[in-house]
């Protein structure tokens, strides 16, 4: 999987990509271990909050209110950010956003940038565009650095290198940093990354960041992180360019009270993030003297227009749904063919593609509901998945599956047809039924798409007497 660009327009369908990913036993072991550790930490710090459900509800209300009034809050943010000395740019789509950022970097007089909080920039493949424009980008988030040096792709929105274990990270550092003697203790690896990055922090004059939240009331931008590398990127450069989806806005500074409790507990199982940075415009003699914000739509407006899909935009990118998902647990993130993997990716990616691509993603779920249960802003992911499945069905029109479904729909609408179908079913299955040691009939092979079932499972034959037949033969009250 390494190196393959996560692009929903070219990625294989989920079942195929999942099959490939599941052949990598090391990856599956790493993903299982990491998600279990994070889930246990999350459960501990969520369990100590008596008002967790009320907090979730508050988070949902804040996000929902924001989305319902997004135009108002975005303009309020623009005014306040501008007043504080920032420059706000609007990007309709990924191409516009890439172009604006590349031009701003060039205008800053630099041909290299340090980066932090990169998921939105991954969404639009910014690094490739910068490289094409002759600009070198250095990822400074430890996990993103591992991904970049390993020529890999992020597999998780909060822990992008979750699919790599310590030994694999050590090998990447040994090779790419030319440190053949590097040990594998966490402090060895952290020290190597520190040495490697410190030089970039001190040299590079331009920073590019994402954002966790944009605060409309003040025009401020908020980033939370664990390492302090973000703080370096936000304070040391002369020019700072922040790129954020228009969904990242919050109405008031006070709303951080809610989201900064929900986010770290859900994301990394911490009560608070070690580094919480909020900056508002520019201040003379303190930090970057030029500050740009690129507000990017890239199909978010279309999602907003869809009443049932809209709640997708409430996401605060904690990744709890990824850690809780039994599908993600088996496949890891790359199989989703997008920087947004797991349950949130399964609903966000197809909508960001306006349903033209990634049609298999809404089906990459057993609808078990574990994602909804842990979501800090109560996004009903199973409900949105079903909504998107309906869109896929409408787009695809007639095919074998839809014909079978329509036929079954007809059967279910009539008692006579239902009874006939039960009789026919028994006749149709007869050639496939084999008796087992107990004399029970079982099917061990099914044709076509149903063969997916019999790869690892048998199917019990229909009973000689159905419940309905038994019920009708026994008379009232079993007499």
């Amino acid at each position: 999987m390494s190196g393959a660009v996560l692009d929903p327009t070219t990625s294989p369908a989920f079942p195929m990509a999942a099959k490939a990913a599941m052949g990598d036993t090391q990856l599956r072991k790493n993903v299982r271990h990491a998600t279990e550790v994070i889930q246990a930490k999350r459960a501990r710090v969520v369990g100590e909050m008596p008002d967790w459900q009320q907090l979730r509800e508050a988070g949902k209300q804040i996000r929902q209110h924001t989305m319902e009034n997004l135009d108002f809050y975005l303009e309020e943010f623009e005014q306040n950010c501008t007043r504080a000395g920032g420059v706000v740019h609007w990007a309709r789509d990924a191409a516009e956003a890439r172009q604006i950022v590349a031009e701003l970097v060039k205008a800053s007089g630099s041909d290299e940038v340090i980066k932090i909080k990169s998921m939105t920039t991954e969404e639009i493949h910014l690094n490739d565009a910068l490289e094409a424009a002759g600009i070198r980008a250095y990822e400074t988030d430890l996990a993103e650095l591992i991904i970049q040096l390993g020529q890999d792709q992020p597999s998780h929105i909060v822990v992008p290198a979750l699919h790599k274990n310590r030994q694999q990270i050590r090998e990447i550092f040994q090779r790419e940093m030319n440190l053949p003697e590097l040990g594998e203790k966490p402090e060895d690896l952290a020290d190597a990354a520190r040495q490697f990055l410190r030089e970039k922090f001190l040299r590079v004059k331009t920073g590019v960041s994402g954002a966790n939240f944009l605060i409309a009331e003040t025009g401020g931008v908020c980033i939370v992180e664990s390492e302090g590398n973000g703080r370096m990127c936000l304070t040391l450069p002369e020019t700072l360019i922040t790129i954020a989806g228009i969904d990242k806005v919050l109405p008031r500074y006070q709303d951080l009270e809610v989201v900064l409790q929900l986010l770290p507990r859900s994301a990394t199982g911490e009560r608070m993030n070690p580094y919480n940075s909020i900056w508002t415009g520019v201040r003379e003699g303190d930090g970057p003297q030029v500050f740009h914000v690129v507000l990017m739509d890239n199909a978010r407006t279309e999602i907003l227009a869809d009443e049932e899909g809209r709640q997708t935009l409430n996401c605060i990118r904690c990744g709890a749904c990824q850690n809780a998902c039994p599908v993600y647990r088996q496949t890891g993130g790359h199989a989703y063919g997008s920087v947004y993997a797991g349950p949130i990716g399964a609903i966000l990616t197809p909508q960001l593609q306006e349903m033209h691509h990634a049609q298999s993603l809404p089906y990459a779920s057993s609808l078990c509901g574990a994602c909804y249960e842990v979501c800090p802003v109560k996004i009903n992911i199973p409900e949105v998945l079903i909504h998107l499945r309906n869109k896929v069905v409408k787009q695809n029109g007639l095919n074998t599956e839809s014909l079978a479904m329509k036929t079954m729909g007809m059967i279910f609408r009539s008692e006579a047809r239902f009874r006939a179908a039960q009789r026919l079913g028994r006749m149709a299955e007869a050639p496939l039924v084999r008796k087992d040691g107990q004399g029970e009939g079982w099917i061990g092979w099914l044709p076509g798409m149903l063969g997916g079932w019999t790869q690892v499972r048998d199917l019990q034959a229909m009973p000689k007497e159905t419940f309905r037949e038994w019920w009708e033969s026994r008379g009232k009250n079993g007499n």
Partner: protein
Amino acid sequence: MLERLGHTVEFPAGQTCCGQMHWNTGYQAEALPLVARFVEQFKGAEAVVVPSSSCVAMIRDHYPKMAAEIGDARLIAAVEALVPRVFEFSEFLTKRLGLEDVGAYYPHRVTYHASCHGLRNLGLGDGPQRLLKAVRGIDLVEIEGLEQCCGFGGTFAVKNAEVSSAMLAEKTTAVLNTGAEACTACDNSCLMHIQGALHRQRTGVKTVHLAEILAGEEGAR
């Protein structure tokens, strides 16, 4: 079992499917007519007892919205009146009737699988386990990863057969680790799925619906 408790049980012959398969796979147009059919079949009942947690979740979570989408005021009112009387089987016993001991006898080692819809959509909690603990002769053993999905998910099992199989493998391993003779649940679809692998692997472990255990009587059969 319900008759043993003194209830009159009826089985409306015209009932077919709640529409869950169609709805969850994206075939909303096919699922919608089944709402009116369900209401027509069951509207006269004092309580509708459903031996499948996912069907109850379908009815409870989606029927009101579906009726609203159809836009028929009479259907909306009928759904609103009927849905509160629809119970999952174990829920009917524990919440509606307030029972734990239903006088059952089942001398076997059993483990309980909490189906996702029962656990998360219906909030059954430990109701089914409390019913099982009261069964005479039973040796109830807890399964590891109780809240983990078995990987069925309706059409998911064939559309994403590989992932589903891997999820199922974790579940059957957990079942086998308990040393149980039988795995029980409140949802036959999960049981069909788990049973499919237990049979393929010639484990000899059976799956039985909770109702089959609670129906067991000492001296019977």
